[in-house]
C-alpha cells in the first residue's frame, strides 16, 4: 500500500472490504499540517483498528467509551495547552475525534455539544452510515425514513423507520462554531479541502461524512463509491459548508437523478419498490426534495 497514504492509519486493520471509513480517516488525517492525536468513540472503526496487540494507528490514539469521545479530547486538548505553557510539549498538535452516527447523533450528543460550546480546538468527524452497524444494524437517529433495520424491521404493520433523520448540522451550527461541513467519501477532493479548512479553523470544526456500510445497507463490496456518489447526485446527501453560520452548497446539478437510483442499490430500501410500500417511497422522495429546498433556502 502507498506508504504516504497510510502514514497515519496503516493497512492490516479488519474493516470490511467496501467500508467507507478507512478512506475517510486517511483523507482527513493526511490534511493536517501538524501531528495529530485521535480520540475515537466505540464503534466499527475502533474495534477494527485496535485489536490488541496490534494497532492500525501510527498516530497517538485514545479510545475511552462510546459516548465520551468529545469529552476525552477536551481533556487532551487542555492538557496540551497546560504542558505547552510549561514547555513540556514543544510541538503544535491537532486533535481529531472520529465517531459513528450512533456515537455522535445519539449517545455522544451531550459530550459533543459540551466540547463545541467550550470552544476546544479540535476537529470532530462523524462517519455517518445511518445506524448502529457495529452491533448489527439497529436504528439510530441518523437512520433515514423508511429504512429496514433490525430494530425497525419491515413487517405486516411496519414500513421500516418511521422518523426522519435528525438534522445534526443545524444542531452543530447552533453552537456558533466557525466551520462545519457535510462531505462524502465518494468526493475525496472535496473531503480533503474541507478537512484542510477544518484544521485551519481555530476552535471547534465539524465534518459529517457519508460512509456506506456494505454489510447492513446490503450491497456488493465493489459498489461503495458508486453508491455514495449516487447519494449526492440524487440530493439525498448534499455537499455543503457552514462558515461563520453561512451555508454554501458545494455540489449541485440542474437535474438531480431520481432518488430511486440511490435507494434501489441497497437491501435496506428493497421493500420500498413493492406496490405495498409505494406511499413510503413517495414520502422518502418528498423528504429528500423538501430537505434540499430548505438547504437551498438557507444559502440565500
Amino acid at each position, binding site marked *: 500500500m502507498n506508504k504516504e497514504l497510510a502514514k497515519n492509519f496503516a493497512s492490516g486493520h479488519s474493516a470490511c472490504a467496501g467500508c467507507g471509513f478507512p478512506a475517510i480517516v486517511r483523507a482527513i488525517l493526511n490534511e493536517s499540517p501538524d*501531528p495529530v*492525536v485521535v*480520540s475515537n468513540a466505540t464503534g466499527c472503526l*475502533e*474495534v477494527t483498528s*485496535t*485489536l*490488541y*496487540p496490534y*494497532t492500525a*494507528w*501510527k*498516530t*497517538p*490514539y*485514545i*479510545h*475511552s*467509551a462510546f*459516548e*465520551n469521545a*468529545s*469529552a*476525552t*479530547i*477536551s*481533556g*487532551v*486538548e*487542555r*492538557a*496540551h*495547552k*497546560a*504542558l505547552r*505553557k*510549561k514547555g*513540556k*510539549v514543544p*510541538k503544535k*498538535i491537532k486533535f481529531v475525534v472520529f465517531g459513528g452516527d450512533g456515537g455522535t447523533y445519539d449517545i455522544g450528543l*451531550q*459530550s459533543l*455539544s*459540551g466540547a463545541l*460550546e*467550550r470552544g476546544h480546538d479540535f476537529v470532530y468527524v462523524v462517519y455517518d452510515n445511518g445506524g448502529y452497524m457495529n452491533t448489527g444494524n439497529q436504528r439510530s437517529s441518523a437512520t433515514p425514513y423508511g429504512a429496514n433495520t433490525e430494530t425497525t424491521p419491515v413487517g405486516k404493520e411496519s414500513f421500516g423507520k418511521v422518523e426522519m433523520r435528525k438534522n445534526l448540522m443545524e444542531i452543530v451550527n447552533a453552537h456558533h462554531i466557525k466551520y462545519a461541513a457535510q462531505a462524502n467519501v465518494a468526493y475525496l477532493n472535496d473531503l480533503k479541502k474541507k478537512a484542510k479548512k477544518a484544521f485551519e479553523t481555530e476552535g471547534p470544526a465539524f465534518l459529517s461524512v457519508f460512509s456506506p456500510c456494505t454489510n447492513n445497507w446490503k450491497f456488493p463490496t465493489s459498489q461503495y463509491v458508486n453508491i455514495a456518489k449516487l447519494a449526492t447526485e440524487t440530493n439525498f446527501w448534499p455537499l455543503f459548508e457552514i462558515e461563520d453560520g453561512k451555508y454554501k452548497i458545494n455540489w449541485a446539478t440542474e437535474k438531480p437523478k431520481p432518488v430511486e437510483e440511490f435507494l434501489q442499490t441497497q437491501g435496506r430500501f428493497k421493500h420500498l419498490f413493492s406496490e405495498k410500500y409505494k406511499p413510503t417511497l413517495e414520502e422518502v422522495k418528498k423528504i429528500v426534495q423538501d430537505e434540499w429546498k430548505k438547504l437551498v433556502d438557507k444559502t440565500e
Partner: protein
Amino acid sequence: MSQNNKNRIALTGGAAAAEALKQIEPDVMAVYPITPQTTIIEAYAKFKADGEVATEVIEVESEHSAISACVGSSAAGARTVTATSSQGLALMNEILYIASGMRLPILMVVSARALSAPINIHGDHSDVMGARDAGWIQIFSENAQEMYDNTIIGMKLAEKTKLPVMAIMDGFNTSHSVENLEILSKEQVQKFVGEFAPEKYLLDVEHPVTFGPLALQNSYFEFKVQQEEAMGKATREYLKIAKEFEKLSGRKKDFFEAYKLEDAEQVIILAGSTAGTTKDVVDKMRKHDKKVGLLKINLFRPFPLKEIIAVLKDVKSIAVMERAISSGTYPPIYNDIVNGLYQAGENKNIQSIVYSLGGRDIFAKDIEKVFEDLINDKITKEIKYIGIKE
C-alpha cells in the same frame, strides 16, 4: 506552632481540599458542580481567577464528561484532578473502570453523600462504597486536616502506582465544618509530590501509543490480573508515602488509626467523621474502666486486611459501623473484616451496624450504647440500624 513552615488556618473540609489542590497545582482539573462538593471547585475557580494557579480548569457539562476529560488529560501526560459527590460519582461509574484499566493516575476528591432515591444531599458513604470495585485506591478522612493530608498523599500515591485515587471526606460533616488545621507551604507540597513524568503519553507524538484497545478472550484476563497485582502492591506504596508525609508534617499516618486498642476488649471499626465522636466516647468510658477502643479505617482500597486483623488479635468483640448498605448482604467493611478473621482462623463476636444514612445525626450516647451492647454480649447476626424510627 511547633515546627517550621507550618501554618495554622481555619478551613472547612472543602476549603482544605481546595487548598491542598492549589498547592499541588495540577495541570488540568475537570469539574462539574454538585452539593456538597461544589465549594471545592468554587474555591479553585477563585484561585484561578486571582492568578494563583495556572491549572487549566475545564467546566464540563456533566460528571461523566468530567471524568472522561480527566481520562483524556491524564493519558495526554498531564497531572489531572477532579472532585465530585453522590450522583456525580454514580454517573462517572462507567469511566471509573476505564481510568483504572488504563492505569491513569487521576486524583479525585469525594465529598461523600447519599444516593437517590429519595434524593438527599447529606453525608453518607453510599456513593464511594458503590465505587469500591472500580479499581480506584480509596482513602477516607476523618476531618478537614486529614482531607488536606490525603489530597496530597493521594496525588503522589496515584502517580507512583499508576492507579487513580479517591480521597474521601464525609459530605457536610467534614466538607462544610470549619476546623483549625495545619497546612504545609506550597514549596513543601510541590517537593513532596514531585514532577509528574509518565512513561507513555498521548502528546509524545514521536512515540505514538494506542490507549484503550480492544482486548479479547486471549488477552483481557491478563490485563485485569496485572491491574489487580498493581492494586495489591499499592498497599505497601501507600504506607511508604504516608510515612514520608508523616515525617514532613509531623502528623501520624498509617493504614488505620488504632485508638486505645492496645488492651481493648470491645472495639468499634468505622471510617470517616464519626471517628471523632467515637474517640470522645472511648475516652469517657475508659475513665470508667471500660476497655474499649476504636479502629478507624484510613486506607480502604486496597484493604490492608492482615494489618487490621493483627491489631484485633486480643479483642473480644467488634462492632463494624457503616454509612452504607450493600443491598442483600452485609455492608462492605463488615464483610472485609469477617473475611479477614476467618482467614486468620479467629472466631470473634462481631456486630454489623448501619448508621447515619442521608446525614441522620448520630450522638455520643448512640456510640456508647454500641460499646455497652458489645460488653453485655448483645451481639446478633442481624444488621442493627441506629436511630431508625420504630
